[in-house]
């Protein structure tokens, strides 16, 4: 069965420091992978997605993620975080079932930013 693991529940970094959020997935075929961000009390916003092709994917707000098939990973990175990046980050895999495409979310990583 498809699954997504985000091993870090909380991450704290200083403003201006680099960031890497980890994500591992389990999927039988080529996965469709997503990173979403959720600010407190808000819905989810898509940061970036990987379907195929270049394994380094650029997203919005200066984020990027790298797909590594050999490690079943899709880690999210940002070279320099801003206080406004404090939020919950969800990694997700698209599971194609018949004609229905569902998203399976990881449990999320809450990012805290130190001034």
């Amino acid at each position, binding site marked *: 069965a498809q699954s997504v693991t985000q091993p870090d529940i909380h991450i704290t970094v200083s403003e201006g420091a680099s960031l890497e959020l980890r994500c591992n997935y389990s999927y039988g075929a080529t996965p*469709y992978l*997503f990173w*979403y961000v959720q600010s407190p*009390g*808000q*819905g*989810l*916003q*898509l940061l970036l*997605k990987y*379907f195929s092709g270049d394994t380094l994917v650029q997203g919005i707000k200066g984020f990027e993620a790298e797909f590594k098939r050999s490690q079943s990973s899709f880690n999210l990175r940002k070279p320099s975080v801003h206080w406004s990046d404090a939020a919950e980050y*969800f990694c997700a895999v*698209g599971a*194609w079932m018949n*004609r*229905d*495409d*569902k*998203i399976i*979310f*990881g*449990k*999320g990583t*809450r990012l805290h930013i130190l001034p």
Partner: protein
Amino acid sequence: DAMVIQNPRYQVTQFGKPVTLSCSQTLNHNVMYWYQQKSSQAPKLLFHYYDKDFNNEADTPDNFQSRRPNTSFCFLDIRSPGLGDAAMYLCATSRAGQGIEQYFGPGTRLTVT
């Protein structure tokens, strides 16, 4: 801007009193989803519509129902809310197809008193 709209943003209901949450979209997407998200947890899919076809998740309680009268609107009905149903309810839409991302509304925060 094309978007997913949820009303109301905050809803307070009494234990056992039916409540309806609303979602509308201007994206003309044919798939609409309802998720329940409790504090510090991932969204949990309740059900989704592929056009008019309703698809219920196996573990969604019977207390939760949904209606989709047209492409643009989808409703979540909770027939007899319990204290455990207090959560954020998220509506999402997507085009049909493999690997297509979902677009989320801002959510409705439901409180049960």
